[in-house]
């Protein structure tokens, strides 16, 4: 009976590429899939029990300002500030925020080239966070495989799946 109640009360919110979510609901998990060259930025405040996740695709919004206006979470330089601002509204305090990065894999483009998008995205995320006075607690980045990320809102723990491997971050 307890297991059934847990299954009913626990919920999973899934975000896609160019989306973000913030939650203060302890029974919730935030998840995202297909994190290839993209970066997933996860923030957690253990005191306020607020968790947030952003899945961005590209580093700079200057390449398409109109798209950034409509979909700010697509880009690092508009998505990361929006993630934090949204999390602040839920009670997250920056000085307590635990920030982790996942993704930034190098994926061969369909034309057969390598544009290093994963590395550029990772550098953009690190740059933004440093500029805003945030140090990164942990990372699972690089490689050539896409990842799936599950984040528990209750305790901020991350499970990262890649191929057949799973790790906690």
């Amino acid at each position, binding site marked *: 009976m307890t297991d059934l109640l847990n299954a009913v009360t626990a919920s999973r919110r899934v975000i896609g590429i160019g989306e973000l979510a913030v939650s203060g609901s302890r029974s919730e998990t935030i998840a995202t899939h297909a994190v290839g060259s993209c970066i997933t930025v996860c923030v957690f405040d253990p005191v306020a029990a607020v968790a947030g996740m952003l899945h961005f695709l590209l580093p700079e919004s200057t390449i398409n300002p109109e798209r950034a206006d409509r979909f700010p979470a697509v880009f690092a330089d508009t998505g990361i500030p929006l993630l934090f601002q949204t999390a602040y509204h839920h009670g997250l305090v920056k000085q307590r925020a635990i920030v982790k990065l996942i993704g930034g894999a190098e994926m061969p483009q369909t034309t057969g080239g390598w544009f290093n998008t994963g590395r550029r995205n990772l550098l953009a995320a*690190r740059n933004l966070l*440093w500029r805003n*006075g*945030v*140090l*990164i607690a942990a990372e699972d980045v690089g490689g050539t495989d896409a990842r799936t990320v599950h984040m528990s809102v209750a305790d901020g723990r991350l499970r990262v799946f890649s191929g057949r491997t799973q790790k906690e971050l």
Partner: protein
Amino acid sequence: MRILIVDDSSMMRAMIKRVVKLTNVPVEEILEAGDGAQALTLLQSHDVHLLLTDINMPVMDGADLLRAVAKDDRWRTLTRVIITTDGSTARREQAAELAVRCYLQKPFSPEVLRDVLTDAAHAARL
């Protein structure tokens, strides 16, 4: 804990200070010096617990500073960290002989410096 940062680049000193403030270590005061001679003057007049020093500096370089610190019993418990561009094996071996706790090679990310500071701060408090 009182920290002394020694580097002839004021921008490098500012970056290190910023990381110190963002790192969860209890800091009473952060002192700065642009060369080894200034650093020695500060060490003589302040009770410093953690010394972070560059090597290549004018007037008195970090090697001479560390030799002076090693010779003086007042600074026997001073925790010492080198922050330098010189990553040669010869320098690293010499650093080990001067009781340097950590050898941090430039360039480094803020997070790497944070980890070094956390470890060094723990050592300084012991």
